[in-house]
Every structure is written in structure tokens, then in C-alpha cells.
């Protein structure tokens, strides 16, 4: 039986990927951030997952205003890194797990009435590949298969925090009903506080971010009830990406153990956060 052995919440700032790709992780600007990634990288090596379900948002790359899925689930066998303006990142091909994707789709739609959009041909942007870099550094091949789950966080109306948490819980049920013996990790990505636009660009809210991390661990239902306008106001317009961490949290079940936390300002225009969680009662 498959099971969820851990969860990762992490920012997915493009500049973090660029710093890694361009050998700048030792620079004064980047060294403190990357130093904090060490323990998380050790953790995931130890946990050694077979598959990561990466909850992320596409940034006008695979999707545009022409078509915006609330929840887009990757069904493919390969997800090439996308060209976002500079040509594709030179990182390994992202390999999928079609069988598990179909199982997830079936369980989510039939058992939990989540209205998934099935996406086969999907180029994945920094929202998905930067978290891989953060957790895995620069391997020849990514050490696990990946199922992308793209969430609309850009276009109002975004799914509610409650819905994101429920999606996570449905993912947990789906994984636990999969007959193969797989170790699955779920990533929630994006955030933390940042605003890239407008006269208020550059907003950082450390207090909000740290409170979010605390409540994510201890009171996910409470955090899921926070209305979107509070994120926009307190965490910046792009800080709303944090709702994707609720999907990850839901997938971990009731109580969790906080394995590791890292918080650093700035990564480019963003407060970079990282949290590693394990479900209580499960061994990694």
C-alpha cells in the first residue's frame, strides 16, 4: 500500500533556481538561504520517496488566460522544463507516474468529487522545478518521480483555503488506497509573503509568515478559514500562493511533526520559507 511519508512547504522563487543554475549559491547574497536548505535535503535523502506530488502554480507558462483550471493534474510520463523567457532551465527531465496519476484522478473525481482537469502535455515552470532544486540540489536525474498538481492562484476566484485543505485530505485517501507499495511526499509550493507589483511592491510580512507556519502545523482548519483578502492584504498579492501549502498539509492527515523550518528574507523580492513535516504515527 502506498503512503504519504512527508510533506514539504517551500517558496519557489525563480531567482533561487537561477542562483543554483549559475553557481551563485556561495555568494554573500545567496549563501545564508542555501545553507538553510541543507537539513531539508538530508531529510529527503533519508526519506527517499518514490514519488512526489508537487502542488504548484503555473506562471503564465503552460496555461494562459485562454484556459485556467482550478486544479490541473498531470497525467503524463514526462514533463519537460518550460521556456519562461530565457529558454528552458537546464535541469533534468521531470518523469511522471502515469499509473498513480490515473489512480489519483479516479479517486479524486469519483470518491471525493474534486473536479480535476486532466493535463497530459505539460511543460513545468519554476513553480515546480525550483522546489526540486531546493530539495535535491543539482542531480543528474531527479531522484523520484513527480506528479504535478497545478492550482489556480493567479486568477480570482481562486479555490478557497478550505477547498485546498480538503483536496489534500482527498489526496491522502487516494494514496492510501493505491495497491503498490510506494513512498509518497507532497510538496506545497509558492509564497511566502511577497508582492511583485504595484506601488506596494516589495511587501514582506515576517509576522504573518511565521504565524502561518505555526498554524499550518497546529491548526490547519483555522488557517484554511482565513479569507483570501487577508492573504492579499497581509502577505502581498503574490503571497496568496500560500494556499497551496494547505493542500500539502491536508495530505498529511491529523497531527504532524515539524521536522525542520527555515525562513530567510530576501530571495529576490520574496520571503523564502521552508518547512518539512511528517505525519505522526508514520515512520519516514
Amino acid at each position: 500500500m502506498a503512503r504519504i511519508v512527508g510533506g514539504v512547504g517551500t517558496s519557489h522563487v525563480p531567482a533561487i533556481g537561477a542562483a543554483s543554475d549559475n553557481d551563485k549559491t556561495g555568494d554573500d547574497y545567496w549563501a545564508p538561504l542555501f545553507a538553510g536548505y541543507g537539513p531539508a535535503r538530508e531529510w529527503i535523502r533519508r526519506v527517499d520517496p518514490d514519488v512526489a506530488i508537487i502542488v504548484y502554480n503555473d506562471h503564465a507558462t503552460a496555461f494562459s488566460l485562454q484556459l485556467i483550471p482550478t486544479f490541473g493534474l498531470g497525467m503524463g510520463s514526462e514533463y519537460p522544463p518550460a521556456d519562461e523567457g530565457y529558454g528552458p532551465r537546464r535541469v533534468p527531465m521531470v518523469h511522471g507516474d502515469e499509473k498513480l496519476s490515473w489512480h489519483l484522478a479516479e479517486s479524486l473525481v469519483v470518491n471525493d468529487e474534486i473536479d480535476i482537469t486532466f493535463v497530459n502535455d505539460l511543460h513545468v515552470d519554476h513553480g515546480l522545478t525550483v522546489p526540486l532544486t531546493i530539495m535535491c540540489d543539482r542531480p543528474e536525474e531527479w531522484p523520484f518521480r513527480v506528479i504535478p498538481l497545478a492550482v489556480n492562484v493567479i486568477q480570482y476566484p481562486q479555490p478557497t483555503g478550505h477547498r485546498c485543505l480538503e483536496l489534500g485530505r482527498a489526496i491522502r485517501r487516494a494514496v492510501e488506497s493505491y495497491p503498490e507499495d510506494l513512498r509518497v511526499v507532497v510538496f506545497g509550493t509558492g509564497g511566502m509573503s511577497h508582492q511583485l507589483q504595484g506601488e506596494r511592491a516589495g511587501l514582506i510580512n515576517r509576522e504573518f509568515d511565521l504565524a502561518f507556519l505555526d498554524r499550518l502545523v497546529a491548526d490547519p482548519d483555522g488557517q484554511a478559514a482565513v479569507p483570501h483578502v487577508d492573504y492579499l492584504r497581509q502577505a502581498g498579492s503574490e503571497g496568496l500562493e500560500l494556499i497551496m501549502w494547505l493542500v500539502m498539509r491536508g495530505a498529511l492527515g491529523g497531527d504532524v511533526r515539524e521536522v525542520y523550518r527555515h525562513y530567510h528574507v530576501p530571495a529576490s523580492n520574496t520571503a523564502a520559507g521552508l518547512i518539512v513535516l511528517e505525519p505522526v504515527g508514520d515512520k519516514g
Partner: protein
Amino acid sequence: MSPPTDTTTKPWDDIPGTYVQDGDHYRRGYRLNMLLMTLNTEEGRRAFAADEAGSLDRAGVTPEQKRAVLDRDWLAMLRLGANVYYLLKLAAHDRVSVQHMAGSMSGISEQEFIDMMVSGGRSPEGNLYTDATEGGS
């Protein structure tokens, strides 16, 4: 697609200096954003670089949007319906940084923006409500 005006009040109206991608913004910026989307491919970038004005005309953007793009008036583009994730394609095309773009929108230089971020970013204090009274609304 008729250019919309915002007629209803929205819960985020009192957040200062923030442009929310709602239905009105979507409709206002649709053509402009779809043009910016073409910068995701080498072919699109070449076509745009070769003839910016012509690309904008063919995309059917408004004269104001065209002017804002040609002038690289980032705040004007935003106000006229561009979405920041789409604007980042233009920043990439121009090889300017996010800090340059964000600084331009907030009225400071790239270096000033970088310095502000290194010092912990723009403070929430006084920046959460347009009337600057924390907890108001």
C-alpha cells in the same frame, strides 16, 4: 470583448498600491497579456523584438496599452490590465530584473528596491489599508 469598468466594490479595494487579477482586470488586460504570453517562445521573442509596434497592433491592444508597452511604463501596463506574471515575460525579454520592474512600479530605482529588500522588505506598517489606520476597513 468590451473594455470593462470596475463598478462594484470589492473587499480588496482598500489595499494600497495593489492590482488584483479579478474578472474586470482579466477582461481589461486579455489581449495585452496574451501578447506578453507569446514571449514564452524564441519565435515569439524574435517577432516582438523585430517589430514591437506592429506586434502590439496585431494583438489588438488599446492605444494606451500600446503606448505603455513601448514606453516600458510598468505601472501603466499594470493599471491597464497587464498581470504581473505576464509582465515578467517582458522583463525577461528586456533582460531587466524583477527589482527593476518592481522598483519602477513603486517609484524607486532598482538599487533602492534591492536595498529595501535586503533590509527586510517593505514593512506592513502603514501599508495594509489605504487610510493607513491599521485594522481599519
